[in-house]
C-alpha cells in the first residue's frame, strides 16, 4: 500500500494526456456520511427517480445484486445470488487478501492526477465477482449517486468474471436533481477469465456542471467475452475516458458500444482502445454520437499484434443543431495477417430519409425523431433483455429532450 501511495503522491499533479485539465482543489473531498439502508425503498422518491433514469431500480426487480454509493458513503451493498459477490472495495481490501491481486493491476496508479487521487483519497467503490462457473441470471446493479454540491467523488471498482462464469452489470452514475457542480473520478478494472462472459452497461446521468474522469482497463482471457456499453445522453460539463482492453487469450472477444448525445456546453471525449494480442481474438468498437450543441470527440483505437485477428471500428456522428463531432478512428496493424477495418461518418440527417418517412404519414419532426432513435438503437448481441430495455429507455428519454 505504501508503495502505491508513494507512486500516487509523485503523480498527484500530473496532467492527463487527454481532456481539459481540472483543478482538483476546487472540489471538496471530505467524507459525506449517509447511513446504510437495509431496504432501498426508504430512499426519497426524488433519489429513486434519478437512479431509475440511470438504470438502477430501488425495487431490485430482476436484479441479482445491488451496490449503491451516495457521495462518499456506501448505503447499500448485497448479493441476492449464490456465486455472486458484491463487496465495497474498502471492506474488501481490509478483509480479503485476494483483492490485492486485482487492485491497480491494470490501471497505473501514477497514470495522472486522477488515478493518484483515487489512491490517495479513495472514498469507496465496489468489487463485483462471479465465482467460477456461476451464471448470474439477472444483472447486478451498481449506482454512484452524487448529492453534495461541489464534491469530488473518488471511487475504484473491480469487476471479475471468474473462469466459465457469466456476469451482467448495469451501472448508473447519477446526480441529485438539484446538484449542479461536482467531480467524479472513477477507476475500474475488469477481469474476464477463461471462457467467461461479462457485460458491463454504464448509463451516465450527470448534471450540467459535472466533470467526469474515468480510468478503466480490462483483460480478457482465452475464450472470454467482454461487452462494454457506455451511454451518456445528458448534459455534462466535461467528460473524458479512454478505456483500454487487452485480449490476452486465444479467441477472446471484446465489443464496445458507445452512445453519446452532446448537449450545448457539454464536452465529451470518449473512446476505447483494444489490444489484440492472441490469435483468433476479435474486437469491435461502435460509437454513435449526436450533438445538438455540444462538442464530442469520439475515439477508437484497435491494435492488432498477431496474425489471425479481426477488428472493426465504426464511428458515426450526427450534428443536429450546432456543436461539433471529431471522430478519431485509429487502426494499428503490427504484423502480416491481421484483418482490421474502420468506417467513420459525420453528417446530418439525410433529407431523403425524412421525406421517405413523411410520405408514410409522419410529420417532419416525427420523422427526424424516428431517424435519431434509429441511429442510436444498435443491436448488441448477447445483452440480456433487461439491459436492452434500459438502453432503449435512455434513448427514448434523450430523444424527448432533443426534440423539444
Amino acid at each position: 500500500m505504501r508503495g502505491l501511495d508513494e507512486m500516487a503522491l509523485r503523480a498527484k499533479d500530473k496532467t492527463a494526456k487527454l481532456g481539459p485539465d481540472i483543478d482538483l482543489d476546487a472540489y471538496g473531498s471530505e467524507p459525506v456520511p449517509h447511513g446504510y439502508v437495509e431496504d432501498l425503498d426508504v430512499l426519497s422518491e426524488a433519489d429513486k427517480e434519478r437512479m431509475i433514469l440511470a438504470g438502477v431500480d430501488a425495487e431490485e426487480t430482476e436484479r441479482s445484486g445491488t451496490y449503491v454509493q451516495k457521495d462518499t458513503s456506501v448505503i447499500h451493498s448485497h448479493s441476492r445470488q449464490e456465486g455472486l459477490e458484491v463487496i465495497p472495495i474498502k471492506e474488501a481490501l481490509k478483509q480479503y487478501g485476494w483483492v490485492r491481486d486485482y487492485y491497480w493491476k491494470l490501471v497505473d496508479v501514477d497514470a495522472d492526477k486522477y488515478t493518484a487521487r483515487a489512491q490517495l483519497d479513495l472514498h469507496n467503490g465496489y468489487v463485483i465477482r462471479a465465482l467460477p462457473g456461476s451464471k448470474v441470471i439477472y444483472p447486478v446493479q451498481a449506482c454512484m449517486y452524487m448529492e453534495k454540491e461541489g464534491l469530488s467523488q473518488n471511487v475504484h471498482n473491480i469487476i471479475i468474471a471468474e473462469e466459465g462464469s457469466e456476469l451482467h452489470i448495469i451501472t448508473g452514475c447519477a446526480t441529485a436533481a438539484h446538484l449542479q457542480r461536482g467531480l467524479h473520478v472513477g477507476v475500474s478494472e475488469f477481469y474476464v477469465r477463461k471462457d467467461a462472459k461479462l457485460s458491463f452497461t454504464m448509463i451516465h446521468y450527470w448534471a450540467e456542471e459535472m466533470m467526469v474522469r474515468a480510468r478503466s482497463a480490462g483483460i480478457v482471457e482465452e475464450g472470454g467475452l467482454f461487452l462494454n456499453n457506455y451511454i451518456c445522453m445528458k448534459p455534462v460539463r466535461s467528460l473524458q475516458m479512454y478505456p483500454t482492453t487487452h485480449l490476452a487469450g486465444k479467441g477472446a472477444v471484446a465489443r464496445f458500444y458507445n452512445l453519446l448525445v452532446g448537449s450545448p456546453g457539454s464536452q465529451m471525449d470518449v473512446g476505447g482502445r483494444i489490444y489484440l494480442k492472441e490469435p483468433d481474438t476479435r474486437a469491435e468498437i461502435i460509437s454513435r454520437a449526436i450533438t445538438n450543441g455540444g462538442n464530442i470527440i469520439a475515439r477508437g483505437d484497435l491494435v492488432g499484434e498477431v496474425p489471425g485477428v479481426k477488428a472493426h471500428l465504426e464511428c458515426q456522428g450526427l450534428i443536429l443543431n450546432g456543436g461539433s463531432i471529431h471522430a478519431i478512428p485509429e487502426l494499428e496493424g503490427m504484423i502480416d495477417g491481421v484483418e482490421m477495418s474502420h468506417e467513420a461518418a459525420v453528417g446530418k440527417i439525410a433529407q431523403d430519409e425524412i421525406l421517405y418517412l413523411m410520405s408514410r404519414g409522419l410529420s417532419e419532426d416525427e420523422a427526424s425523431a424516428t431517424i435519431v432513435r434509429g441511429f442510436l438503437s444498435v443491436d448488441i448481441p448477447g445483452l440480456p433483455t433487461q439491459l436492452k430495455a434500459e438502453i432503449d429507455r435512455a434513448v427514448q428519454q434523450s430523444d424527448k429532450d432533443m426534440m423539444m
Partner: protein
Amino acid sequence: MLQIEDLQVKLGDKEILKHIDLEILPGETHILFGPNGSGKTSLLMTIMGYPQYRVTGGKILFKEEDITHMSVDERARLGIGMSYQRPPTIHGVKTRQMIEICAKEEVDVEALAKKVNFSEFLKRDVNEGFSGGEIKRSELLQLMAQDADLFLFDEPESGVDLENIVLIGNTISELLQRDFRVDSEKTQKERHRERTKMGLIITHTGFILDYVTADKGQVLFDGVLTCTTHPREIFRCISRVGYEECIRCAA
C-alpha cells in the same frame, strides 16, 4: 380524383415537366410509359410533394383539394401513397416499425407480411441490404398498411425475379381493387362499379400489364405527355419501334 392542370416543374434550373395535364378518376389506373430521363419519376415525386421538384406553374388537385403546395406528409394523410424504386435505408428502424408507422390504425403486421412473403424481414432495418425484389415487396407491404386512395408505383417490377413478379402483380391488383374474386358475394361487375382506388404505374418493361389491368396508358416524352390511349396499344407500339414513334408524335 387526381387532376393535374398545366403543371410545370423545375428540378434545379432544369425544366423537367412541361405543361402536364392528367386526370385520374376514382377507380382508374393509368400506366405511365416513357424512355429513361423523360420525367416519369419526377412526375410521381411531384405528385407526392418532394420539395426539390419545384412547381413553377399549374396546379395539382386531389379529392378536390389544391395540394400543389402541400407538404409530403399532408398528402400522405390525404391518401396518396408511393412505392419507390430506390428508397433509402433507415438504420435502426425495423421494417415492422415502419409498417406500424404507415398504418393509420392498428394492423395485423404478421398477416400483411405473410401476404407478400416478407415475414422474415420484419426484424430487419428498413431496406438494409434488401435486393431489388425485396425492396419492392417491402414497399408494397408499407402501402398495404397505409391503405392510400391514390397509389403511385415507380417501376414495381424492376429487379424482381420471375417467381416474385406474379406475387407483386397480384398484390398491386388487389391494392387497386382489380383482383378477380370469384368467391366474392359481389359480382365482378359490381366490384368494378364500386372501385375507388386510383393508380399511376411507371413501367419500363410492360411486364406489369400481364398482371394488372389498366384503363389508360400515358407516354411521357421529354417532360411532355404525348399521348393517352389504351396501355396495351402503347406497349405494343413501343415494343415494335421503341420510342421513335413518340418522337414523331411529340414533334
